């Protein structure tokens, strides 16, 4: 409870200050709607189902794309770390593509797949796969050879060494790569949804886009808040347990 008190106070103060600034006329309602208006929009759109439906569409794309990117990225990362040939080819390609914002793929994705879920899927994968691959590669490369030697003298070989020694030893790198991959996937998807209209489902990005078109800034802010909350929740639910485990085991926790 002690931990929560300052957190709650901070956010309440933030909202109160914001509301006050708008009501006092210091911020124009046209430019910045008050939190009460944003709240009204959120309640209404939850009630009529649009928000939940859009969130569902977006999350489905995100999770599916991210999972595929995760599996692909890991496999590529292991290949890059294991074989010099892949390091010099795929490794270099990954390094280059990682620096490319994956929304740049949108024109080609539209051409190849049309205005379909597949195009979205492709963009999300492209957003996450490279950073996950590079993080896996870096993690594997940083595993002290002594661990592998110790495992080999205990009779560990091949796949067993990879599964039980190299990948667990690389876990801190892999988890931070997964986090980065998630963040990139999330950004890519939002950019794609704002930029491209997909006929099979309207996601949060589309709602945001229409908010802009209709100059409904209460909707824009409301959706932004939803996006932030989803980001926070995934961080806390998906990655925090891993990070806590790593901090505890490796002793990197800061008290």
């Amino acid at each position, binding site marked *: 409870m002690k931990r929560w008190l300052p957190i709650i106070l901070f956010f309440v103060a933030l909202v109160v200050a914001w509301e006050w600034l708008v009501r006092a006329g210091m911020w124009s309602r046209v430019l910045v709607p008050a939190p009460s208006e944003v709240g009204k929009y959120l309640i209404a759109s939850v009630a009529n189902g649009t928000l939940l439906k859009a969130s569902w569409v977006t999350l489905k794309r995100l999770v599916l794309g991210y999972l595929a990117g995760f599996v692909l990225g890991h496999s590529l990362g292991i290949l890059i770390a294991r074989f010099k040939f892949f390091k010099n080819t795929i490794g270099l390609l990954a390094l280059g593509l990682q620096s490319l914002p994956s929304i740049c793929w949108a024109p080609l994705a539209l051409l190849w797949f049309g205005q379909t879920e597949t195009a979205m899927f492709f963009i999300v994968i492209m957003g996450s796969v490279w950073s996950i691959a590079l993080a896996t590669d870096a993690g594997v490369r940083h595993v002290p050879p002594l661990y592998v030697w110790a*495992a080999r003298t205990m009779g560990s070989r091949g796949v067993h060494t990879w599964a039980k020694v190299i990948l667990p030893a690389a876990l801190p790198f892999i988890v931070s790569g997964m986090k980065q991959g998630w963040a990139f996937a999330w950004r890519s998807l939002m950019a794609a949804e704002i930029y491209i209209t997909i006929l099979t489902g309207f996601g949060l990005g589309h709602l945001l886009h229409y908010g802009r078109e209709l100059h409904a800034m209460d909707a824009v802010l409301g959706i932004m808040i939803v996006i932030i909350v989803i980001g926070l929740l995934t961080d806390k639910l998906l990655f925090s347990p891993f990070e806590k485990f790593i901090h505890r*085991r490796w002793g990197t926790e800061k008290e």
Partner: protein
Amino acid sequence: MTTGEEIKSVAPVKLALEGVSKTFRTRRASVHALDNVSLDVREGEFVCLFGPSGCGKTTLLNIIAGLELPDSGRVTADGKPVTGAGSDRLVLFQESALFPWLDVMGNVLFGLKLKPKLKPKERQEVAEFYLKLVGLEKFTHANIHELSGGMKQRAALARALAPNPRVLLMDEPFASLDALTREQLYGDFQAIWEKRKKTIVFVTHNAREAVCLGDRVVLFSPHPGRVQEQFAIGLPRPRDINSVDLAKYATEITRALKRDLKPDLHEVAE
């Protein structure tokens, strides 16, 4: 002073090295690490490889372990040629090499899980037995980073002993510990060795340590690494690292080492 021939015992030869040579080549230089090293280690014998840093002791240990291969010469364990690492020859490294993603118990179980014949319950019992033997029974679920240096080496020893290897190869396992912890471990380690007779090859650059633990001390000379001389240690066990008799042996061995090292005395590590 005696040679290996005189340390006759009835025990059969466990490890045999014949004319082992190894050169490391990098782009800039080549280092002749081992030159024509021959050595027999008998079943149950505790052999210390002693010499200054850079005399190839660690390389020799890695070759016996099968982690590195010699350029020429033969290594056999129980008469069978060593072609790779095997769980009959476990290594205790200078740093503990414990796995930080597992707790103490997980580490000790690692080698045991690679023995398919054991049932999970048996593995647990064996692990608990060895953790008790090294005095870590209260720390079975501690994380590795929570252990002190001495406790880490104890845990590593338990992990190495648990799969019941016939040969234990130890690479300066106590070198990074403080003097007090080390003295404590000499006592404990001798007691453990008395209970679980293993064939041990122990690398050290500390003459007293070599005399305290070994049945035989093999003196290496550097550049390239060669067997210089061998000393049988006839002291009764358990040995006290601070005893006068032990110091006499150590002095004799150190003198032999220095005699050999005159040209580059500054490289003596001890």
